[in-house]
């Protein structure tokens, strides 16, 4: 469940000069390819053209508008998806019966490629924000659900017995045992969900929207404004990194007790 190598990669980049140098070299290579590759700007704009397009989108307010809409969809979708997955995951972890009842749907929902049913959701719920929030929530749902189930199931029986021998109430068992014990695996699921939610919003916007970064990408493509596509893509990357970083920070804050080597 836990991409350990990935975490150590992201935590070390802050002080990683080699990484920064490699990034700079990448941008330089991109610039050289655009400058000397003989490709027209609508195929490969140079970093400078992208930067200027970025500044223009920033000053005319369009970037804020579209990024804001996408961010809103992501946050609400993430909230709704993660919250419902957590509650349902807890119940599934506690009840084998519920697990048996729900498992065909859970397995099937995993087999359905969300990209394929996104058009359906837009037909049913319209091209507004609601269908995007829904797609976000659905894509976030599964990893959070699975990790909640795994996390709650992994609560040590011995600690459960300890709590019972001390006459702990169900509420105390939830708050003082199950939540803290399941938290590491749960946050791992949330981290995956946070990244996926960005993809969910963009899928929804591709299918049909008049706002959002996915919409902006479509516009850029239609108008051969490839620099705008780059701007939108980089903004999406930035959003995904920030969300990922927030969860990673939460992990560092709440999981200090874990062995970190």
């Amino acid at each position, binding site marked *: 469940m836990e991409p350990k190598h990935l975490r150590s990669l992201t935590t070390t980049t802050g002080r990683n000069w080699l990484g920064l140098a490699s990034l700079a070299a990448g941008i330089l290579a991109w610039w050289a390819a655009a400058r000397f590759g003989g490709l027209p700007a609508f195929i490969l704009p140079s970093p400078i053209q992208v930067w200027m397009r970025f500044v223009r989108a920033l000053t005319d307010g369009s970037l804020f508008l579209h990024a804001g809409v996408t961010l809103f969809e992501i946050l609400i979708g993430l909230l709704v998806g993660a919250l419902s997955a957590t509650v349902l995951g807890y119940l599934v972890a506690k009840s084998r019966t519920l697990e048996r009842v729900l498992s065909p749907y859970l397995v099937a929902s995993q087999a359905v490629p969300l990209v394929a049913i996104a058009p359906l959701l837009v037909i049913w719920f319209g091209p507004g924000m609601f269908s995007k929030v829904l797609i976000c929530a659905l894509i976030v749902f599964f990893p959070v659900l699975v990790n909640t189930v795994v996390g709650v199931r992994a609560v040590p029986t011995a600690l459960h*017995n300890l709590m019972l021998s*001390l006459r702990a109430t169900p509420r105390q068992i939830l708050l003082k045992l199950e939540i803290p014990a399941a938290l590491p695996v749960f946050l791992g699921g949330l981290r995956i969900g946070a990244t996926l939610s960005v993809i969910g919003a963009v899928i929804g916007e591709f299918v049909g929207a008049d706002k959002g970064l996915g919409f902006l990408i479509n516009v850029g493509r239609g108008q051969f404004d490839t620099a705008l596509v780059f701007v939108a893509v980089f903004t999406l990357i930035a959003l995904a990194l920030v969300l990922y970083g927030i969860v990673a920070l939460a992990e560092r804050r709440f999981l200090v007790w874990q062995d970190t080597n």
Partner: protein
Amino acid sequence: MSAAPFLTVRELSAVFPDKNGGLRALDEVSFEVYPREFVCVLGPSGSGKSTILRILAGLLAPTAGEVIFSAGPQPKIGMVFQEANLMPWRSVIKNLTLPLELAGLETEAAREKAGDMMDLVGLDGFEEYWPRDLSGGMAQRVAIARALIHDPDLLLLDEPFGSLDALTRERMWTELSHIWQAKQKTVLMVTHSISEALFLADRVLVLTQRPGKVKLDLEVELPRPRKEEIRYTPQFGRLARKLKKAIG
């Protein structure tokens, strides 16, 4: 011993469901424990020792028989298992005070008591450590302190030193008998070590192979406080041979 038993176990049976009509773990086990008595339960593995403790702690309902506490229907219990079972997300002091927290007793007096307890088990200064940074012996001392902090009526110990090395284990015997003498608790302790039982107990119960029955109920009339050297006395040797014979 004083007249009224603290705990009476009467014809206790435990059957676990399995494919061939149920696995009988305990078969009509009866015994008594008197106030402030230290009783050890010895027996081969699988003879139902842990099952007895789990029934007494209210973690498991017996198939037949009854458990009577003179103090009321459910006494306060402190339990220690083979593993320390500390919560890794709580500091040492927070692990120690868990029973008080659950009982809603987080007062200034309680915090003082926690300090005394840290002293008693020799862990002064380790309050803010994470469990991951403790040795096995230290963790087990926290577990013992945690079992005592809410002033339980009955202490249930299930092979509490089984995972420790021999040297640490023998140090823990001395510590435990000090604590027991200081706190005047009633203790029921499961062990598979004859020396451990004779070093600590007032009385030793020996269970038979599964299904467990009480095979021998032996008074340990060795003077207290007991020191290391007591193991080389003829009295100790005689009792040890008796237990050994009963275990088979």
